[in-house]
């Protein structure tokens, strides 16, 4: 913002457009995940743990590559594997890197009651401030992607930060840096959308994936993480990616109309009893017979 004094938005007595106006690049950052070139190596998971200072959790074995069922408070980045049988009977091993989607309209932030515990930076990153977190878990109810996870030992909620600490230093997120196939990209939202659409078109035109497309769900205002999917009509096949994610309507109602109706009702209650007292006063027992002589 301090550099904004170097940008001119209007000039007096100047013919034509303002020089340099409108050339600034969009500041929204975005991660592009091309599921069609992911090989499931989990290098992104390791890089995430290393950068954020966590160690491996205990793994489970259930006859698949899925050695952990879902992300955890200390495991923010997890590839979801799905052995998907297509209509023609052929098998596809779908792999999707699951992490916070950094929604433009974040359900966690809408649901959070603690002042400043969840912030959305101007570049679109949604970040938790654990020192402000009160541990209520409302963010877990507000999120349509099942991302915020509760740490019972310090009663705070954690999730992927999109490496806001790296990004603010001009670095790409750790997962992007570790990816060996180049299925992960990082840049501005416009650039990533363009790249994603190019890749989806390639998949449609050259590889026979007629339904290939880009997952950038409008229900949450678009996301800071976009996927290229072989079949964008069936996102659920990719480890339960929701088809039309949106902030739960109960959360919307609770944080919207219910708040105002409730507040007004409480206010009317307090005002109402006050007015009753001013109009009718207290019910006196003693004054009725003895105290007020001369009255009927």
């Amino acid at each position, binding site marked *: 913002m301090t550099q904004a004094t170097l940008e001119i938005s209007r000039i007096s007595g100047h013919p034509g457009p303002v020089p340099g106006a409108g050339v600034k690049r969009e500041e929204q950052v975005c991660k592009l995940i091309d599921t069609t070139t992911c090989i499931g190596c989990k290098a992104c998971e390791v890089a995430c743990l290393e950068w954020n200072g966590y160690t491996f959790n205990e793994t489970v074995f259930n006859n698949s590559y899925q050695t952990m069922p*879902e992300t955890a408070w200390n495991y923010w980045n997890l590839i979801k594997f799905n052995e998907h049988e297509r209509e023609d009977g052929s098998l596809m091993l779908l792999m999707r890197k699951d992490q916070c989607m950094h929604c433009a309209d974040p359900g966690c932030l809408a649901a959070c*009651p*603690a*002042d400043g515990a969840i912030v959305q930076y101007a570049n679109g990153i949604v970040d938790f401030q654990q020192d*402000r*977190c*009160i*541990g*209520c*878990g*409302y963010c*877990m*109810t507000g999120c349509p992607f*099942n991302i915020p*996870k*509760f740490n*019972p030992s310090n*009663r705070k909620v954690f999730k992927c930060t999109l490496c806001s600490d790296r990004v603010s230093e001009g670095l790409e997120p750790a997962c992007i840096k570790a990816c060996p196939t180049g299925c992960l990209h990082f840049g501005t939202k416009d650039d990533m959308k363009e790249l994603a659409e190019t890749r989806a078109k390639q998949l449609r035109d050259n590889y026979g994936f007629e339904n290939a497309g880009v997952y950038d769900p409008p229900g949450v205002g678009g996301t800071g993480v976009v996927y290229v999917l072989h079949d964008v009509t069936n996102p659920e096949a990719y480890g339960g990616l929701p088809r039309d994610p949106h902030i*739960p309507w*109960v*959360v919307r*109602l*609770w944080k919207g109309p*219910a*708040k105002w109706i*409730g*507040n007004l*009702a*409480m206010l009317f*209650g*307090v005002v109402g*009893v006050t007015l*009753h*007292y001013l109009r*009718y*006063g*207290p*019910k*006196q*027992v*003693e004054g*009725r*017979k003895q105290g007020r002589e001369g009255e009927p």
Partner: protein
Amino acid sequence: MSVSQVISSSERGAGESDDRILRYTLAERVNHWIAGLSYMYCLITGLAFWSPYMFWLAILVGGGPTARSWHPWFGLVFTASVLWMFKIWRGDMLTTDADRAWRKVMPHYIRNEDENLPPIGRFNYGQKLFFWLMLYGAVLLVLSGLVLWFPESIPWKLRWLRYLALAIHVTAALATIGGFIIHVYMGTAMVRGGFTSIIRGEVSAAWARLHHRLWYEQVTKKRFEEK
């Protein structure tokens, strides 16, 4: 059967008349204040979680994380206390024919025209409504509160339970707050003598005669028979 009784003359100091009537036993009073104080703690912290404009209330009672930790525990205390009230007052709280007659002319009560009201028992219809509101409110609050207490243990597939719990908790809380505002107003400002009765347990005979004539007749008759 009412647990109230008239304090016998021998329990009282010399010179005092039999004019005072025991309305709430010590156990009832203690329990009422356990319920009242635990409810107020939940109210203060709950309002803090409800609106950012009231989040400062959480600071008053030790900060957000502390409020979040204690709110459910005080909720359990409140629920236990209300269930105990249910155990001892259930019989007193059923709507009677006297209540139905009283209810029809309730505007007189609101306008303090008490002489126009039919006689009623130990509790009036409004008190009974408040009792049932708080009882059902507490049950709904504690059931939905258990889900909100441990949202991380509700599986993702059952997340509708979280949404349902949220809706129920908010609705039940607002309903009890409405009752609470009226209850506190009537108990402290409007019905004089009511507040001291829940502190010290006693009311004057005139108070009992005016507000709860049937109950008054019942306890004074009992006293007469005992003599």
